[in-house]
């Protein structure tokens, strides 16, 4: 499990299955289905090749779309979140994340949660805007973004503290 490729492939499959088999059918309070697979972006190593990262995110989104019959909405949302990850990291951790010796251990809990929350809110905003694609439903869109984001952030925070890798 120390090989980062094996570890990430394992996470990829597990998150995909967890999303489509458990969380897509969760329907918390009637209709809220959290999209916890966004945590893949949070866990993905920072210093990897960005092009590979974008391609992996694209593939994850596409597979989830095939399972959920949702056109290519997940793909678009997670791709954009993956592309924006460096900007969000610079915003949350300051310039020092670009140094070689940067690890999550040196950051505060608040910084990490902000980073995770920004990724999720960006992903959900794009997802629901393109899903409904109509200005007359702006209230419905906002309601969905807010409720789903809150639940996703809650679950992802739980997961990140449950499965936090000790080596990082």
């Amino acid at each position, binding site marked *: 499990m120390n090989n980062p490729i094996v570890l990430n492939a394992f996470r990829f499959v597990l998150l995909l*299955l967890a999303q*489509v*088999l458990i969380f*897509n*059918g969760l*329907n918390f309070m*009637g*209709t*809220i*289905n959290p999209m916890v697979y966004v945590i893949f972006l949070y866990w993905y190593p920072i210093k990897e090749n*960005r*092009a590979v990262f*974008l*391609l992996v995110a*694209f593939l994850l*989104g*596409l597979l989830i*779309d*095939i*399972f*959920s*019959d*949702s*056109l*290519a*909405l997940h*793909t*678009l949302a997670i*791709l*954009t979140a993956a*592309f924006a990850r460096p900007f969000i990291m610079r915003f949350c951790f300051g310039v020092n994340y670009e140094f070689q010796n940067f690890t999550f251990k040196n950051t505060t809990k608040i910084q990490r949660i902000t980073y995770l929350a920004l990724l999720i809110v960006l992903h959900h905003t794009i997802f629901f805007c*393109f*899903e*409904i694609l109509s200005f007359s*439903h702006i209230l*419905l869109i906002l309601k969905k973004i807010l409720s789903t984001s809150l639940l996703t952030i809650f679950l992802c925070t739980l997961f990140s503290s449950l499965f936090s890798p000790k080596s990082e």
Partner: protein
Amino acid sequence: MQRIINFILNNRNTFLYALLSFIALLLTVRSHSYHQSKFFNSSRWVSGKIYGTAANISGYFSLKEENQKLADENQRLRKLLFNAQTGEEQVLDSSLLPFQVAQAKVIKNSFSAPRNYLTINKGDNDGVTQDMGVITSKGILGIVENISGQFATVQSILNTKSSINAKIKNTDYFGSLEWDASDHTVVQLVDIPRLVPLVVGDTIVTGAMSSIFPENIPIGTIKRYDLNASKSYYNIDVALFNDMANVRWVYLVQNHNKAEIDQLEAQTEDE
């Protein structure tokens, strides 16, 4: 030239992002004009198998309720059978009857998105064709959309693209059944003229204008109604009989006359 190449190399990730999101947008927009993505949907083999396995396991947890539903339906059918009028006009050869019924199991359900699709465990190999009607013992569910060998996807009535002919029970006033994506227990019936007397609680059933569903399949009851913007038609909220969050066994209805009806109608429109 050197500068252009350098510029592209320096911004290669941005270009990659633009290319990939272009592909994603293309898939989304192209399938907006179709009913559903033709290639990327859950009737595909791998996703169908995985959903099938999961449904097999979770199916055990609802066996009790399913048995109760079956018993209720048997009771209703027996009542119909004992009261049925047997006469000379009874057709003995079942292949001459206009409607054929088959059963299938839902292996994937969704009801919270604006465009909802279900996946069922019957496909091309079992004789499922596009545009077959899908109903449950309580009411209508949707229309078959894409088919693979062993699976099919069903466009739910909880889909903003869905439009189904429906009428008020025991009258011939008909309108079309749509969904505004806000509540999964309520659908909207539009285009019922203003002169029709309505009462909250009236039953809505499928109409005779559709070649997909037989007439008089229950849909729901009127929850509330008001006039639309032009003040000449009603907008009716219909509370569904079906609990869309909890469906497992469904019936597929095929109208043998559908091809003939569709062909005739297309011919008439062309002229």
